[in-house]
């Protein structure tokens, strides 16, 4: 039960993007299409889960003073791993996400908070926490990506979903559109909460 909560809280209640407004850069930068969003979500989740596992394994050996640097190294390593793997096996996606793959480091330092925060959880809970946060992040960016792709290109996952006569609202996939869609979604979430 508790585990389940650990897992699902990141979906909505503590959604890292909508509720906590963290990790905004990739959220806005890579959501021009659902495909990119999925890629980014996957990469981030991978890093979150594995670094969570790793850190909860070694937490007892790390003195508090170097907690953060050690944590950074672990995360950065996993980021580098996913970077290399994606570069090797899905070069197109890697190209699209570009700069924002290495930047997952920064992002995950923020999201993978349960560990840094007292580093008190066991491996299983850490996995669920990381997975929950990662999925919450992924859901959020997929939603944003879908809205932006449909509005801005009339497509979803590259397929046309709106009639040909639809004249795409180009801004939606440009920078301002990212902010506007995000702001409106957050407002909507607030409205729902009440």
């Amino acid at each position, binding site marked *: 039960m508790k585990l389940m909560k650990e897992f699902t809280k990141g979906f909505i209640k*503590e959604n890292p993007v909508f509720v906590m*407004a963290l990790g905004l850069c990739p959220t806005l930068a890579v959501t021009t299409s659902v495909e990119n969003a999925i890629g980014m979500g996957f990469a981030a989740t991978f890093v979150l889960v594995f670094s969570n596992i790793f850190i909860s394994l070694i937490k007892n050996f790390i003195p508090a003073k170097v907690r953060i*640097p050690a944590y950074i*190294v672990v995360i950065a390593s996993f980021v580098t791993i996913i970077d290399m793997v994606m570069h090797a096996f899905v070069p197109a996606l890697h190209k699209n996400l570009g700069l924002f793959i290495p930047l997952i480091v920064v992002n995950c330092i923020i999201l993978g*908070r349960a560990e*840094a925060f007292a580093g008190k959880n066991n491996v299983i809970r850490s996995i669920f926490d990381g997975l929950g946060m990662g999925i919450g992040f992924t859901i959020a960016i997929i939603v944003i990506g879908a809205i932006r792709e449909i509005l801005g290109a009339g497509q979803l996952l590259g397929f046309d979903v709106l009639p040909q006569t639809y004249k795409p609202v180009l801004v939606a996939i440009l920078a301002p559109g990212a902010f506007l869609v995000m702001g409106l979604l957050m407002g909507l979430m607030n409205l729902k909460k009440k």
Partner: protein
Amino acid sequence: MSIILYSIATLGILGLIYGIGLAFASKKFHVEVDPKIEEINEVLPGVNCGACGLPGCSAYAEAIVTRNEEINKCAPGGDAAVKVIAKILGIKASTKERQIAVIHCQSGGYDNTFLRYNYQGICTCKAAVLITQGPNLCNYGCVFQNDCIAACKFDAIHLDKNGMRIIDKEKCTGCGACVKACPRNLIELVPISKQVHILCSSHDKGAEAKKRCGNKTACIGCGLCVKKCPVEAIEMQDNLAVIDYEKCVSCGQCASVCPTKSIVDPIAEKRGTAFIIEENCIGCTICKKKCPVDAIEGEVKKVHKVDPEKCIGCEICVNVCPKKTIEIR
């Protein structure tokens, strides 16, 4: 293979240099800070994301301790952090009884205020009072522009259907914002267990006060309540009865004699006798200590009993019982 070696060497050396460098610097340039700040800083995730609106975790920790910043602002820390911080701070959090706001005026509704003139200013009590001392005939009563409602961050003050301001006991946190907001000084924070209040603030003399009160519930300074109060908790101050809540035992005697109903006892109707449900009583003696008329008897760790003869039904024990096992019957 050499790449592996190089990389190990490079990163290893970088790590070593940074580690030692930082450690060294932090010792050499050590600055003393409040231990509580350090403690909270330890609890905070240390990721410096800025979600709290402050520049970094340590700044937030400092703000919590020195500037009473709210403790629920750390997004990455989540609920867990809030709990731990609350615990750290909790050491100094007082164990005093919860206080809530009471408005000492029964006027201020649509139909129960006499107007002196047609007020055309901005809708704040403060401003209304500044002009010609308020639109109502009573110079002490509520000027009904609802500054208190606006001031309450917890949505604890509402208008009833008659246009009167009612305080929601559940929601009120006793923050005192409304007390500061009311320009007529009508609002006071009182311990939640106290039930009987004088709901008038008029210092006008008897007849005058009643004439000016739209609700006809002004304190006319007759002094009956002062005489009746068993614990001498009421004092006449410049034509107004004032209850000293330190002494008040919520017996409701005063309310029963007040000719203008300016003292209100909300539990008068259902006032009964306290009864302790034996199964749950743990014998903490709290109720015994708190009872104003010594109607409760019992030893430590033993079941307590109420003497129905002495009990005045003030419900103080009901409110203080940690096991919630006292009932009024």
